[in-house]
């Protein structure tokens, strides 16, 4: 079965929301900001209205700082839905790792070097600061710093129509491929929050095994369904298992989804196409719920503000440094200023922060989630300013 190439370029491909919030006229008619927005629009980048910038404030408005409709008690009931959303996101990351030829392998290596570099820079700086600041975290500073690094490493090239420009297309592809290592490290970091390192490694393997088992079950079932309805039940059941089981065990639904997605991608048959087609209908409702829940969960605590600072301050340095190295590893196939393309944070970081919140609870977990939500919004705004050069090769 052939596949349209640009369907793979963004997690889940283009959709109604992308079309609705495509670049049109800038929001501000004049001035430097307007010029920046026009430049971004000319590059095919979203000018301002990244989904996070739209839906997180809506969530904030509905949460405790606004109307109070999405109270903490109601958000608790959304935990299972969020776990499914996280698994679905992990699945999309796994499905995007469909490597076709040496070109994709080279992009994969470059992408993961970039994300590893970002994790190292953000986690290292955050760890040093957390130790110096003596923040009362209740668990090892290194683990919190690692979680911040993982959340910061996610990126989305934020394209609108990447098929028009090969460099944009490559940058977008790298943005999709750079989530594998963060999800793996994130799964380990999540296990480290509750277990010693050796046991945490075991639990990370357990998460992978869970993903593999559900992947195997889905692979056996999807193509044997007697009709679309039955197949839909299998798909929903598989995703619910991928989200629910790790979340119940305090593990990472994202990693489980990634492993299952990888399995379906490389297993014989059409399981990957089936899951992609069926999940595409759920993708954006889940993403919107995730973002609104992120806004409603936001807590302006002192700890969140102190975690937010290193997240934003060193994420940009990490992305630019990682992108600088990655662009040279691709030997000119990617834009030279790849880091600037990767500044928009996307959803995976937020999703990982939700996992941390579900594992650590209302103190440090909520502070870290709030820091990442605020950092995501700030990074989206930074992305408006740090504009890539379309001619940089």
């Amino acid at each position, binding site marked *: 079965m052939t596949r349209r190439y640009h369907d793979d370029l963004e997690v889940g491909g283009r959709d109604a929301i992308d079309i609705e919030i495509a670049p049109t006229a800038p929001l501000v008619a004049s001035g430097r900001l307007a010029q920046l927005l026009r430049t971004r629009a000319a590059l095919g980048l979203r000018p301002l209205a990244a989904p996070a910038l739209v839906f997180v404030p809506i969530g904030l408005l509905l949460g405790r*700082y606004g109307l*109070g409709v999405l109270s903490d008690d*109601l958000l608790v009931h959304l935990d299972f839905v969020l776990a499914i959303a996280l698994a679905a996101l992990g699945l999309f990351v796994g499905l995007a790792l469909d490597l076709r030829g040496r070109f994709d392998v080279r992009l994969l290596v470059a992408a993961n070097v970039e994300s590893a570099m970002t994790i190292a820079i953000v986690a290292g700086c955050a760890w*040093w600061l957390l130790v110096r600041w*003596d923040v009362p975290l209740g668990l090892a500073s290194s683990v919190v710093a690692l979680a911040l690094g993982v959340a910061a490493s996610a990126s989305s090239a934020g394209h609108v129509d990447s098929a028009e420009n090969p460099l944009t297309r490559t940058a977008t592809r790298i943005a999709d491929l750079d989530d594998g290592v963060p999800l793996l490290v994130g799964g380990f970091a999540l296990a480290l929050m509750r277990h010693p390192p050796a046991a945490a490694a075991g639990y990370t393997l357990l998460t992978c095994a869970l993903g593999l088992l559900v992947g195997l079950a889905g692979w056996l079932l999807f193509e044997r369904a007697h009709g679309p309805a039955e197949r839909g039940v299998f798909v929903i059941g598989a995703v619910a298992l991928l989200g629910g089981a790790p979340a119940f065990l305090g593990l990472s639904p994202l990693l489980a989804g990634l492993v299952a997605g990888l399995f379906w991608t490389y297993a014989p048959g059409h399981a990957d196409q089936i899951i992609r087609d069926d999940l595409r209908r759920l993708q954006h409702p889940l993403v919107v719920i995730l973002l609104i829940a992120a806004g409603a969960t936001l807590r302006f605590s002192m*700890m969140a503000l102190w975690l937010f600072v290193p997240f934003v*301050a060193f994420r940009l340095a990490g992305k630019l440094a990682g992108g600088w190295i990655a662009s040279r590893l691709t030997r000119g196939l990617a834009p*030279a200023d790849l880091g600037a393309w990767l500044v928009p944070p996307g959803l995976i970081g937020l999703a990982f922060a939700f996992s941390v919140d579900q594992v*650590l609870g209302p103190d440090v977990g909520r502070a870290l989630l709030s820091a990442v939500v605020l950092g995501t919004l700030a990074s989206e705004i930074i992305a408006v300013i740090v504009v890539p050069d379309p001619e940089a*090769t």
Partner: protein
Amino acid sequence: VKPFSILPSSAGRETRLLLVTLGLSAVLLLVLAQFRFPVAERALQAGPVAPPLERLAARATFDELARIMAAVDRRVSPSMLVFDIRSTDATPGGGGELLAHRAPALRVRDDMALVALQPGEQVAAILGQDAAVQLVARDDVRGLAVCRVPQAVAPTLSVEEITATVSARYVALVEASRSGPSARPLFIGRLDPVDDARWGQPLAAFGGALTAQPGTFVFTLNGELVGMVVADRGLPALVPASLLLAAAEELARGRGRAQGDLGISWQRLTPAIARATEAPSGVVVAQVAPGGPADGALFPGDVVQGIDGRTIDSLADARLAEASLVTGQPASLQVVRDRQRIEVSIVPREAPRDSKPSPPATLGLTTRTTREGLEVVRVTPGSAADLAGFRPADLITHIDRQPITATNNLVRAWDDAPAGRSWLLTVIRSDASLVIAIVKP
């Protein structure tokens, strides 16, 4: 493709941007490192205008919690009984006051129930039942007892192992009310492991106040047994369910825990003795049993301040520490003798099981006659007068509302009375009048 170079002179836009960003980040890192996180974290509060729907949601929360508690109550009630507990404050100076309270009991078998029972306490009855309660075995060190109760089908108990790493949660406390067991919610913010020599394994301490009475059973909101609340140095701690049920099983088989015995009679450290011995705290060795473990190692007048690392501040501490000692293993006692601190090693023996020392039949009062009444000169340790709470210098003025003028009146009344006879004596102590009951064993 541009040549790979990090030299700024030949660098492209992206390299210059990277170098500037890295430089700024390094400066920012050094600047940020100068700050310190404020000690008293202040969470920013929500706006002054209360969210219009928040109160509705909050009410729904309480309704839901009440519903959950009702469900827990229904689920665990078949496993629970309520015992009437009676005790006499038999500690010297305690005054022999009759005490009564109710305690929840957990049915561990069809005909046996586990209850928290402190030394000196007895199970008098089962609330709402006429049937007698028979003690099977008790463990005074841990304060547990298993009693035989009327046969009924004991529901299968599910157990949840709770650890100190558990996150904040609600649990259900099942305690004794006037009409039976009653569940109420308790929020546990955090659990900290705490060592307790009585149990051999760490317990889980939860909070700084006794919000849950010792002896209360703790269940999850799904009705799984989490453990029992005990007091650990005045603070509540949770005995994990597995440990609790293992202890109950031993008791149900009639095998109480072996208790250590040093062969010592203890006496409270009075201010006068403290001054004389220059020991600010501890308890006094009143008597050493000849041929006992402490014979030759301890002497009357020694002040024991610690046993195996446990600080001894009261008679209860001393008795608990003594009973907790492992038979046959040397115990180290921190003692003040002749105003010198010394370390004494004693090998405890096993205390006789189920052989409660019968209260002495002697009155144990040495008095002298004064114009106002009888002044207590000496109280024999362990005597009936000692257990009743008499102290030297007490002035006895009345016996059963009759003025007392001669020692013989009291001694004759004591000798002539049958066992179980009791008297009320009016006593003046430090210019305050009080009534002390004394019972002839």
